[in-house]
């Protein structure tokens, strides 16, 4: 569509763009913003509207009157904070272990002499492409033999394996971009690999590590199928399972669902907006420049 505007990337001297090009790009941009943000804004608006307004034949895009009854409902009536606690425990533990294991592995792959490193990276990537339904049954059998059903442990172990490929790949790309001469200088000074990693590479890569942690956090926070299969009560169920179970007997409590969605998603959206530049360069190996 906007191939028309290609040339503006680096306009040759004296080349003049037709003025309508500039006009055309803004409707496109506006469409992208509305399409991306619109549904969530409506969800936010829904969460503070009383049920009576939600059931009226003409929806009100700007909430009036404002009510917080849905938020009260989910915390008082549905103990939503317990799901949040479960999710927080599982997700934070997973993210920390994932960063530790993943960054060490990425360091070894990127900066130490390992034969067949691309074979190993290919294996790691291949695992992340598995249909997850293919491992849910065997893992269920294993977990039930170990007595690990309805525990945080089982979810953490699974999410660790789901998150590690992402962490290893993103950090591998980042660690590769740090000049090798830094390692060599440290090595001359007698530093061992782990010293180089913890004292030099890791501190240098802090922004990338934080971003990767955020990606891993989002992946575990949002996971649904394993949480659904491996936990059966509110003591261990995570937020996605909690929201999926929000169904009324006579009608669907859309207001409560919207409130829960906002509680769960707003922190993620804010974090993503803050770190967006790092996330984009992390996901694309630095290929997208501002």
């Amino acid at each position, binding site marked *: 569509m906007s191939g028309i505007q290609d040339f503006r990337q680096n306009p040759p001297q004296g080349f003049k763009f037709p003025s309508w090009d500039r006009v055309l790009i803004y409707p496109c941009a506006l469409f992208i913003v509305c399409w991306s943000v619109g549904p969530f804004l409506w969800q936010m608006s829904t969460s503070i509207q009383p049920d009576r307004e939600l059931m009226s034949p003409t929806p009100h895009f700007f909430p009036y009157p404002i009510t917080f009854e849905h938020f009260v409902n989910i915390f008082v009536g549905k103990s939503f904070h317990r799901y949040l606690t479960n999710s927080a425990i599982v997700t934070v533990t997973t993210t920390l272990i994932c960063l530790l294991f993943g960054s060490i592995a990425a360091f070894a792959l990127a900066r130490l002499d390992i034969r067949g490193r691309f074979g190993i990276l290919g294996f*790691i990537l291949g*695992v992340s492409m598995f249909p997850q339904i293919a491992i849910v049954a065997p893992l269920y059998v294993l977990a039930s033999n170990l007595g690990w059903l309805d525990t945080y442990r089982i979810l953490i172990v699974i999410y660790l394996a789901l998150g590690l490929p992402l962490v290893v790949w993103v950090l591998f790309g980042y660690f590769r971009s740090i000049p090798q001469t830094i390692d060599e200088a440290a090595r001359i000074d007698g530093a061992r690999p782990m010293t180089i990693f913890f004292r030099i590479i890791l501190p240098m890569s802090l922004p990338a590590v934080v971003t990767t942690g955020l990606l891993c956090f989002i992946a575990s926070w*949002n996971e649904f199928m394993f949480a659904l299969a491996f936990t059966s009560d509110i003591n261990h169920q995570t937020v996605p399972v909690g929201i999926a179970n929000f169904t009324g007997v006579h009608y669907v409590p859309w207001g409560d669902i919207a409130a829960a969605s906002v509680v769960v998603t707003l922190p993620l959206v804010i974090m993503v907006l803050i770190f967006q530049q790092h996330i984009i360069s992390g996901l694309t190996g630095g290929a997208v420049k501002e």
Partner: protein
Amino acid sequence: MAIAKVQSHETTLKPRKIPFNLWRPGPLVLLLPALASIGAVSIYPVLLGLWLSFRDTTLSSPTDTFIGLGNYFQLFSDSQFWNAWIHTIQFTTASTLLETLLGLMIALVLSERFRGRGIVRAAMLVPWAIPTVVTSKMFGWLFDGQNGVINYLLRSLGLIQHNVDWYGSPDFALGTIIIADVWKTTPFMALLLLAGLQTIPDSLAEASVIDGASAWQHFWHIRLPLLTPTLLIASMFRALDAFRIFDLVYVLTGGGPADSTEVLSTFTYKHLFSALQFGYGSALSTVMFITEIVIAVAFGVFLLRKMREIGQ
């Protein structure tokens, strides 16, 4: 003298080999925690699943014997399996195509310089960050048959006379799920394509301008061919991901109405955790696994051939 010294360092350091020693963490030892975590949850379960698929294991009864290919024969004559299979292929094809097209359009817009581009890029990441379960519920509310905003908007525009029960009717349910999936995953696609676009040197655009090519010609003959490998890789990832769709369907329709949105993952899940047929369910998931490998190999072969064409 100084140069000689540096060179001697280089020659001693170049191989960068650390002798393998269990007590000093060599490179492979550093990989061990990560590889063990991944292997424990992937290789072993896949093999165990393969083994289960040859048995008639049912958790609700004591039957557990080796039945060879029995499950696979049952599967090929199971009309519900083929029903789910067709829906999965329809969903995978439609969502991958739509996401690639829309993603390409968004990437082309975002590769331009204009005021407020940072905001558009940030906004684009919002659907990606939202949990799929929330996306499901959100589209459930947007497309609600009674009070949904989509019905209201379409009625206001005069496109429909009466409310449509989007995901409650077999005719529209799969389409609604495809729209929700396109919304959720197009940003990721756009991001990958944007990365690909930005690796194409700007000098090519200048050359096109000098040669008097139109913008359309430039896109069609220069950018698109150069972007083809990225397009193929990105759509392969999307296709593999779309093929295993579970959350959206399970939460929005549960496979209904009248099995019109049943896909392989939900079908398998029901066999596993509602019927507790672990043997048959494992055969289903093994078939899915093999299909994923076939998709990946097909894309890989196609990609290699395209790359060779471009190379020549």
